C-alpha cells in the first residue's frame, strides 16, 4: 500500500506557485484560501499518513517511496524518494502542524502589509522545501531542501527589502549559511567518493562495519564537516551571527523559520546521520562542546538585550545549543524531544511577541512596554505558559525535554558540560522571566498610555519600528490582537503545556513514550557498544540511576526557580536595581549588551580584509587591470589593424585585380618552389 507521500510537499508548492505567479491580482481572501488551504491540507494529509504509519509493522519501517532516477553517472546514482521513519514522522507533524498554525497567525499579523501574496507565497515555498528536507531519503535531496529553506529564509528576512537593515540581514543570513553549506557539501563529496552513494540506507549499511574511530578518521571527517553545515543552519558558534539579525523579518517568519523549524534542520541532520556520528567520538565531542558553549554564550547575551525579538533570538540559539548538547552525548532522542517542545514554546513565544508588537503598533523595545497584562489578557496567558515552559518548570514541556538532555549529559560523564548547561538553564529562566515582567507587569511605559506617559526618544522608537513601511496601525493604546492571531497562540500555549507529557521518563513513573518510539532510528545502525548506551540513556536509565535522575531534575527546577526569583526581584520588586547593577558592571555590561562585539570581531578579522582583498586585488587588480584591460586591448588592436588594412579596399577595380594577380603569383611561386625542392 502506498501512502503517496509526495502529496505532502507538493501541496504547499502548488500554493506557492499559484500565489506567487498570479496572487498579485487576487483579493486577500483568495490568497488566504490558497495559502492556508494548501498548508492545512498538507497538515491533514500528514495526520492521515501518521495514522497509517503508526499501523505499520516494525519491519516495514523505515517506509520508503521511490519515484524515479534523478541522475545516474558511472556507479553513482541518485533517485527521488521519500523516507518515513519515526524521526521524520516527528518532524513531519511538527513542521506541518506548527507551520499551519503560524500561517493562520500570519493572516492577522500581515493583514495591513504590502506584498501580502508574496509573503504567503514564500511561506508556502518554505513549507515545501522544509518537507523536502525532512522527508528526503538521500542526502542530495536533503541538500535541495537545505538550500531551499536557506533561500526562503533570505527572501523572508529581507521581506521589507526597502529597509537597508532588512536587506543586509537577509544577505548576512544567506552568506553565513553558505559558509556552513560548504562544509556540508564536502561531507557529501566524501560520502560519494568512499561509499558511492548518498542514500541513507546505502550510507548507513556502508558505515555499519566501521568500529567507532578512536582517533580522527574518515567518518570523523565526514561528521565534522556535517557539523560545520549544521552550525550554519542551526546558528551555533561560530556561525550563529546571522540569526539575531534575521529578526528583521516579519515576526511570524521568526517564529516559523528562525525558531520552530528551519534552524532545527541542523539538529535533524545530526540525528539523521547518527550512524556516522555514533562512530566518530571526536565529532560527537565537538557537537556536545559547541552546543554547550553556544547554550551559555547566547543565554548570557540574552540577559541584557532590550529588543523583545532579540531576546527570543538569543534564546533560540541557546536552546538549539541544548539540542546539539543532547545529540553530542548520544541522547539523540532527547535532542529531538527538545526540538519538538522548542517548536511549541518558542513558536508560541515569538507569536506572542508578534501579538505584542502588533498591539503596540510596531514597538519592539521592552523598555517601552510594561503592564500589558491588562490590555492583552490572552497574549499574557499564552506567553506565561510558554515562558514557564522554556524556563523548565514542571509540568511544562521543556522541563521534560531539557532535563532529559541535562541528565544524559551528566550520566555520560560530561560533568563539566552539565554544569555549564545547568547555569545556562538558570540564565534562560532569568532572561525569560525578565522579558515577562518587563512586558506584562508594572506600568505601561509606551507613548499614549492609559495613565500618564514617560517620554522617550522618538527617533529611537522610529528605528525600532518594524512596521515603518506600513504605517497603517493607527492605534494609540495597546490592544489585544484579533482572534485569528489569538487562536494560534492558544494552540501553541496548550502544546507548550502538555507537549512534554509524551516523554515523561521512567524515573518519574512515566511510560517514556517518546524515547521508546524514536529508539529504533538510533539503535538500528548504531555500533555495537553504543546501541546499549543510546538505549539506556534514551530509555530513562537503569532503575538504580532513576533516583539520582530525579535528584537532578530537582536541581534543574531549583535553578529555574532561582532564575524566576532573581527576575522577580530585579524587574518587579526593585526596579531601580538593574540600572545600578549595569552602571557598576560598566564595561562588562556594555560588552554583553554589544553581544561581546563578535560582529565587530568578524567584521575586522574576516569581512573587512575580504572586502579589501576583493576591491583592491580582485576588482581593481585582476578585473580592471587584467581582464578588462585584456578585452579593451584586444578590441583596440583589432581596430588598429583594420584601420591599416582598409586602405587595401580602394574601390579601384584594377587595384583589386592587381592584388589578385600578386596573390596568384605568390601561390604559383610557392608551388614552383615546392616542386623544385
Amino acid at each position, binding site marked *: 500500500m502506498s501512502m503517496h507521500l509526495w502529496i505532502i510537499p507538493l501541496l504547499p508548492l502548488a500554493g506557492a506557485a499559484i500565489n506567487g505567479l498570479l496572487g498579485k491580482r487576487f483579493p486577500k481572501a483568495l490568497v488566504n484560501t490558497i495559502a492556508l488551504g494548501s498548508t492545512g491540507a498538507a497538515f491533514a494529509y500528514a495526520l492521515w499518513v501518521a495514522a497509517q504509519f503508526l499501523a505499520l509493522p516494525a519491519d516495514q519501517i523505515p517506509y520508503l517511496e521511490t519515484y524515479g532516477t534523478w541522475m545516474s553517472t558511472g556507479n553513482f546514482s541518485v533517485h527521488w524518494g521519500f523516507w518515513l521513519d519515526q524521526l521524520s514522522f516527528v518532524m513531519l507533524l511538527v513542521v506541518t502542524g506548527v507551520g499551519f498554525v503560524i500561517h493562520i497567525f500570519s493572516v492577522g499579523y500581515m493583514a495591513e502589509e504590502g506584498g501580502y501574496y508574496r509573503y504567503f507565497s514564500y511561506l508556502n515555498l518554505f513549507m515545501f522545501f522544509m518537507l523536502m528536507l525532512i522527508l528526503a531519503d538521500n542526502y542530495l535531496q536533503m541538500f535541495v531542501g537545505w538550500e531551499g529553506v536557506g533561500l526562503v529564509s533570505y527572501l523572508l528576512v529581507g521581506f521589507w527589502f526597502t529597509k537597508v537593515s532588512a536587506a543586509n540581514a537577509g544577505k548576512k543570513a544567506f552568506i553565513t549559511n553558505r559558509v556552513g553549506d560548504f562544509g556540508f557539501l564536502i561531507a557529501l563529496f566524501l560520502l560519494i567518493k568512499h561509499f558511492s552513494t548518498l542514500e541513507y540506507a546505502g550510507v548507513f549499511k556502508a558505515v555499519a562495519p566501521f568500529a567507532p574511530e578512536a582517533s580522527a578518521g574518515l567518518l570523523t571527517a565526514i561528521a565534522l564537516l556535517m557539523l560545520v553545515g549544521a552550525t550554519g543552519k542551526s546558528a551555533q558558534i561560530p556561525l550563529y551571527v546571522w540569526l539575531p539579525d534575521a529578526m528583521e523579518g516579519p515576526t511570524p517568519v521568526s517564529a516559523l523559520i528562525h525558531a520552530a523549524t528551519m534552524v532545527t534542520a541542523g539538529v535533524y541532520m545530526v540525528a539523521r546521520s547518527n550512524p556516522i556520528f555514533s562512530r566518530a567520538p571526536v565529532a560527537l565531542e565537538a557537537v556536545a562542546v559547541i552546543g554547550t558553549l553556544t547554550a551559555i554564550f547566547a543565554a548570557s547575551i540574552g540577559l541584557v538585550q532590550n529588543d523583545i525579538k532579540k531576546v527570543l533570538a538569543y534564546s533560540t540559539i541557546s536552546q538549539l545549543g541544548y539540542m546539539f548538547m543532547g545529540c553530542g552525548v548520544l541522547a539523540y532522542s532527547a535532542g529531538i524531544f527538545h526540538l519538538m517542545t522548542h517548536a511549541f514554546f518558542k513558536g508560541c513565544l515569538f507569536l506572542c511577541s508578534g501579538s505584542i508588537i502588533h498591539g503596540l503598533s510596531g514597538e519592539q523595545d521592552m523598555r517601552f512596554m510594561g503592564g500589558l497584562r491588562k490590555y492583552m489578557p490572552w497574549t499574557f496567558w499564552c506567553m506565561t505558559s510558554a515562558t514557564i515552559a522554556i524556563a523548565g518548570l514542571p509540568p511544562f514541556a521543556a522541563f521534560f525535554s531539557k532535563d532529559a538532555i541535562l541528565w544524559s549529559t551528566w550520566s555520560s560523564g560530561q560533568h563539566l558540560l552539565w554544569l555549564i548547561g545547568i547555569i545556562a538553564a538558570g540564565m534562560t529562566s532569568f532572561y525569560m522571566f525578565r522579558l515577562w515582567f518587563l512586558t506584562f507587569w508594572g506600568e505601561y511605559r509606551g507613548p499614549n498610555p492609559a495613565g500618564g506617559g514617560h517620554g522617550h526618544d522618538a527617533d529611537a522608537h522610529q528605528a525600532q519600528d518594524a512596521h515603518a513601511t506600513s504605517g497603517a496601525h493607527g492605534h494609540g493604546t495597546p490592544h489585544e490582537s484579533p482572534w485569528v492571531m489569538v487562536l494560534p497562540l492558544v494552540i501553541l500555549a496548550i502544546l507548550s503545556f502538555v507537549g512534554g507529557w509524551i516523554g515523561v521518563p521512567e524515573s518519574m513513573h512515566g511510560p517514556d513514550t517518546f524515547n521508546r518510539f524514536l529508539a529504533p532510528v538510533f539503535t538500528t545502525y548504531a555500533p555495537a557498544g553504543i546501541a546499549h548506551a543510546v538505549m539506556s540513556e534514551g530509555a530513562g536509565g537503569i532503575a538504580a540511576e532513576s533516583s539520582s535522575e530525579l535528584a537532578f531534575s530537582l536541581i534543574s527546577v531549583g535553578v529555574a526557580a532561582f532564575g524566576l526569583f532573581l527576575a522577580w526581584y530585579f524587574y518587579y520588586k526593585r526596579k531601580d536595581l538593574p540600572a545600578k547593577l549595569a552602571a557598576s558592571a560598566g564595561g562588562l555590561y556594555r560588552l554583553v549588551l554589544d553581544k561581546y562585539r563578535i560582529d565587530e570581531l568578524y567584521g575586522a578579522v574576516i569581512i573587512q580584509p575580504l572586502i579589501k582583498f576583493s576591491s583592491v586585488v580582485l576588482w581593481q587588480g585582476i578585473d580592471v587591470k587584467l581582464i578588462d584591460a585584456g578585452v579593451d586591448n584586444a578590441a583596440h588592436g583589432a581596430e588598429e589593424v583594420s584601420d591599416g588594412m582598409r586602405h587595401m579596399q580602394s*574601390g*579601384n*577595380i*584594377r587595384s583589386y585585380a592587381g592584388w589578385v594577380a600578386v596573390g596568384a603569383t605568390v601561390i604559383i611561386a610557392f608551388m614552383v618552389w615546392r616542386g623544385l625542392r
Partner: protein
Amino acid sequence: MVPLSYYLVLSAVLFACGVAGFLIKRNIITIFLSIELMLNGVNLTFVAFAAQLKSLDGHIFVFFVMVVAAAEAAVGLAIIIAVFRTRETLNVDRVNLLKL
C-alpha cells in the same frame, strides 16, 4: 603532330595577354574581353591535354567553361549597360562606389 609544349606556350601567352589587359586597360569592355582571353587560354590547355591523354574529360570541361562564359557575358554586359546608364562612363577607375 604539333608537340604539346607548343600549345601550352601559346595558351600561356594568351593567358598572360589577358592578365596584362585586365590589369592595364581602363575600359570595362576591354577588361571583359581580357577575361575572355584568359578563359580561352585555359580552354586551349584543356583541349591540348585532352588530345594528348586521349580523354574526353578536357573537352567536357571546355564546354562547361564556354557555357559559363556565355552566361557571364550575358550578365556582365547587362551590368555594364546598367553601370553606363548611371555613371555615363566605362572607365573602371571611376566606378569606385564600393570603396570605404
